[in-house]
Each structure stands twice: as structure tokens, then as C-alpha cells.
């Protein structure tokens, strides 16, 4: 493993449809063996980026290299990658076994080797015994695992996944999430994973690429995105509840910033007259171990304070909050993060 040459590299990649924006100026550097999540709201271009990497779409501008080879215009099959589709794209008339070994047959792998690889892939995904079933006879989770097995059996160093969990129910999603992460580590493959669910991205990925309107907003580890959001979009997208944004005029001493960001866990309830902001309670959201109290303030949006246990506070009640300056994030009038709070 050489860390100085990136495994996947996209340089200034752009894709447009009839003048409509697909993605613009996408620069990605993905180290070998890493788990990268492309995160963003729907229509942000994350799937397009994945399809550009896969070769199912060709870029209008820029270049893509995989494993040191320029594949900008190469066919999908020449890029040594496997892909898991959101719809799974299983062949409905073929059995589980036939679906999994479809690619091996195409590549003329011998019958004995096919058998061996099939058995291994089915064992890894827990599908042993389902060889003869058709996709129509499987549950959603099982189909998803067939799609995974098909990607595993190809034994490619790079695996692209396009929202592979979005068709599963919440409970299953959490367990498959762990399985995928474990698989990636065990097989030592590089995974590029598209999702709109930040929990998935934050919990699985070594590196998160947050996109909006076809542009990359921030690339970094989950911690970086959480603790050092590059702009107000990232601040408001990452975290549950998202970061609150306060207009700087409401807080004296920070006039050089336009917006000030603040996370719920850094807010304390202050006794009357001693708080830094006087708000009104808008709603209480009970989550079991804690309760999120939504607050309204004329110069702030998304203010939430997290209190332990069950709290019921009637809406409209006054509440003052305090926080320390070191927990504040500062953004300029373009929404970009400011390094230091120039006072």
C-alpha cells in the first residue's frame, strides 16, 4: 500500500445535461483501502459522481484515474470495479447462484473456480442455501445481499455502492451497515458509497464528501465535517440536530463574522437574567435518554438544547441559554468558515 499515489483520483470532473448542471469541478483523491461516502441531499450530484467513476457516464471535462491508470474514457468493464445498485439490478429470471456468477461466466472463469468463488461469496453474505432461489422469492434484505455477493465475487479492488440500503427498513439498515463496513475491512477493498443518510456516512466512512448542487462542499473525515464545517451548508447538514446559526449582531463582540454556529450539546440552560440569549421554547422532542428542546430566537435558526431524560416544557415559555466562546463556529457573509473569531 503506497499512500502517496491515490487509488482513485478525479481532477476537475464536470458533467452537464443540455446545459443543466450535473456536477461541476469535482476533485477527489481516494486512498487505497478507504471507505468514502458521497453524501448530500437528493439531486446534489452524488450519484452522478459515482456513475462518472463507474464509467456508466463519461465526463464532459476533467480526468479520472484509477490505480494509476487514466480511465476517463474507458468502458465500465475496463476499470476493475464492481457496483451495487440502489435497485440491486438483479437479473429476475436467474437464480441467486446464476446472478452472482454472471460476471465470472462473462469473463470465462472455469467451472470449478466459479463454484469455489460462489460458495465463498454466499458464505460471506450468509446466503448459503439460497442458491436456487429467484430474486422474486427473496426478501429485500436478501436481495440486497445477493447484490453484495455479486460485487464480492468479482474480487475487484474498487466497489461502488449507490444507496444500497435505501430500500431496507430502518432496523435492517443498521445491521447491514455494520456488515458492509466489516466486509470492506476484511476484503481490504476501496469503497465509494453514495448515501443521503448522514448516519450511514458518518458511521461507516473514513472520508466523507459532502455535495450540494453539483459541487463538493467539504471533503474530510467525519470528525472534521462535524467539528470544523467548511461552510454553513455543511454545518446545517451534518449532525442531529444540525448546528444552529445565529446572526452575529445578536452576540456582541463577533461583528467580523456574519453567522455564528453552535451545536446543541454545547448549549446550557441558564438561570433567568444570566443567559447570553433569551429564547422561547417552541417544541420538545423526547428521544428516551434525552429530550431536544427547540428554541426560537428572532436572530437565530435551528437553536436546540439537549436535556437529559424526559422534560416537558410548555411551548412559548421563556428560556435563557449560555455557551462558551470556544464552542462557537464563525462564518463570513458568503457562508464560509472563518478560522478565528476576529473580535
Amino acid at each position, binding site marked *: 500500500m503506497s499512500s502517496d499515489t491515490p487509488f482513485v483520483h478525479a481532477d476537475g470532473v464536470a458533467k452537464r445535461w443540455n446545459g443543466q448542471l450535473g456536477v461541476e469541478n469535482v476533485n477527489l483523491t481516494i486512498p487505497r483501502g478507504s471507505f468514502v461516502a458521497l453524501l448530500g441531499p437528493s439531486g446534489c450530484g452524488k450519484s452522478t459522481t459515482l456513475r462518472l467513476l463507474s464509467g456508466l457516464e463519461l465526463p464532459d471535462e476533467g480526468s479520472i484515474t484509477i490505480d494509476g491508470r487514466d480511465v476517463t474514457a474507458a*468502458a465500465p468493464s475496463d476499470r476493475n470495479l464492481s457496483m451495487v445498485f440502489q*435497485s440491486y*439490478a438483479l437479473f429476475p429470471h436467474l437464480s441467486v447462484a446464476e446472478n452472482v456468477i*454472471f460476471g465470472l461466466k*462473462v469473463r470465462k472463469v472455469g467451472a470449478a473456480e466459479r463454484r469455489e468463488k460462489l460458495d465463498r461469496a454466499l458464505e460471506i453474505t450468509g446466503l448459503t442455501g439460497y442458491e436456487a432461489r429467484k430474486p422474486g422469492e427473496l426478501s429485500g434484505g436478501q436481495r440486497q445481499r445477493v447484490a453484495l455477493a455479486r460485487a464480492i465475487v468479482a474480487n475487484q479492488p474498487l466497489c461502488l455502492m449507490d444507496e444500497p440500503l435505501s430500500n431496507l427498513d430502518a432496523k435492517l439498515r443498521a445491521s447491514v451497515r455494520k456488515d458492509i463496513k466489516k466486509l470492506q475491512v476484511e476484503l481490504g477493498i476501496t469503497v465509494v458509497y453514495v448515501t443521503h443518510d448522514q448516519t450511514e456516512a458518518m458511521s461507516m466512512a473514513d472520508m466523507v464528501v459532502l455535495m450540494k448542487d453539483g459541487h463538493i462542499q467539504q471533503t474530510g473525515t467525519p470528525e472534521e465535517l462535524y467539528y470544523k464545517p467548511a461552510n454553513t451548508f455543511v454545518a446545517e447538514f451534518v449532525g442531529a440536530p444540525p448546528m444552529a446559526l445565529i446572526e452575529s449582531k445578536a452576540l456582541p463582540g463577533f461583528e467580523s463574522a456574519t453567522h455564528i454556529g453552535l451545536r446543541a450539546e454545547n448549549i446550557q440552560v441558564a438561570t433567568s437574567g444570566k443567559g447570553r440569549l433569551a429564547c422561547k421554547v417552541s417544541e420538545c422532542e423526547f428521544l428516551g435518554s434525552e429530550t431536544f428542546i427547540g428554541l426560537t430566537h428572532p436572530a437565530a435558526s435551528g437553536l436546540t438544547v439537549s436535556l437529559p431524560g424526559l422534560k416537558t416544557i410548555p411551548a412559548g415559555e421563556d428560556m435563557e441559554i449560555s455557551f462558551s466562546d470556544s464552542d462557537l463556529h464563525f462564518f463570513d457573509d458568503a457562508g464560509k468558515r472563518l478560522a478565528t473569531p476576529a473580535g
Partner: protein
Amino acid sequence: MTEHVQNERRRQAIYGWILLSPALVLLSLFAFYPSIATLWSSLFSRGTRRRPTEFVATENYADLFADPTFWKVVINNLIYAGATIPISIAIALAMALWANSKIPARGFVRTAYFTPTVLPMIAAANLWLFFYTPGLGVLDKIGGLFGFESVNWLGQPETALWAVIIVTIWKEAGFFMIFYLAALQTIPEDLKEAADIEGASRWTYTRRIVLPLLMPTTLFIMVNALINSVKLIDHLFILTKGGPSDASKLILYYIWEMAFAFFDAPHAAAMTIMVLVVLGIVAGIKFTILDKRTHYQ
């Protein structure tokens, strides 16, 4: 068993029969009864003024088996079916695959293919008469440009049946294409993408994915083509009238001739029964063997 359960069962049964009755009445009246009546009349001799109708059992069938024209017609129809079914299906599939890809003027291509279907068979036959007519016809005109001699396509026994076969294929292929086109559009785009990622060639994808997924459609079309190969005879009336010397005569035309030109209803009935039996056997094969090997979504 308690009474209300029994009442409920009875009500369900009555409900079922009510739902069943329209189909039952119509089928009995227009399919079952005529079939049985035909079978019945095929077992009796033709009545004349001097010799009344009498029960002759299978004599009518024996007459047919001894009739060289009958065998000629059967062989003609086998050739007709053997040529029109596979060729029209193959052409329909090829046209559908082509019209489903991203080609310029796709709408025009599809419309052009479908046009023969909307023409009545009689009109189509008249059109082709204009192609085939010796001397005046388009085929001869074109042939003449290259110095070929005039050919009487419909007038000579060697070519008459094939000329009729070509008209049928031309008429059917566009119709079958529509079914294939509809089926092709139900195949999700991402199957092709998944196959692309695996490195499957266009041919592999077509053979291993598209054709199997089209199999239900192919079966449906095959049954239709088979039925048409028996029942589509309108153009014979315009083009050849079964001639020359029975060279292009098909079974249904012969049945019609037997019944309404020779007024020999019992022999026509016997022939009808044989056609029904053959079609019944084919339907049996379709529902048992072929359906089991076909993937329905």
C-alpha cells in the same frame, strides 16, 4: 359446523357462480356448443334429396385421409406455418431491438413498422397484387431494370405459396414488434448497466438477459402466430384463390371451399375438428411444458 359458517360458504359459492356465469354463457353459446355440433355433424353423411343423412362414424375422416388435395393442403399449411411463424417472430424481434435503441427518427420507424398491421388484410392483398402482377407489377418493373425476365409470382405453382407467405410475414411482423417493444421497455435500464460493469458484450446481454426476459412475450406471440397461420387466409381470396392447382391452398380456405363452394358440410366439419384437435394439443404443450420453463414477472 355451525349454521352461519355454512351459510357463508353457500353465499361464497353463489357469488362465485355469478361471477363465472357471463363467461360460461358466452363460451357455451359460441365456442363449446358449435364445437360439439361440428363434431356431431362430422359423423354424419351429406344428405341429398334422395339419400337422407345417416350416421357414418369416421367415414368422413377416412375420405379426407384418402383425398390427395387434403394432404396437399395440410403440407401447404405446414410450410406456411413453418415459414411465417419463425420468420415473422425473428423480424419482429430484430425490428423491436432496433426501434428500442437510440436511433434517429425513432417515432417514424415505429410507425412505419406498424402500418401494415392497421391495413385490412384485403387491402394489403390488393397492394401486393400490384407488386406481384406480371409485366405491370413493381417487382417486375424493378427486375426489368436489371434485365430479369418477367415472373408470374402468383401464377406458377413453385412461387405462389411463397408469395402468399411473404405477404403474411409483412403483415404480422409489425404487429408482433409492438408486443416486443412493450416488453423491452419493461426491462429496467440498470440491468444493462450491471451487465456493462461485468463486462458483458451486447450479444451476451441480449442472449442471457434480454431474450429470456422476453420469453413470455415470445410465447404469446408464438401462439398468436400459430393461430394466424391457420386462420389468416383473407389474402388468398384476392391473390391466388388457392391456386394454381392448389399450390397455395391452406386448410381453412379448403374448409371454406368444401362447405360453401362444394356444399359438403360434413367433410368441412371433419376437417374443422382435426384443426381444433391439433390446436388443442399445441395449447396443451404451451400451458404445460413451455410455461414451466419461462420466467414470468
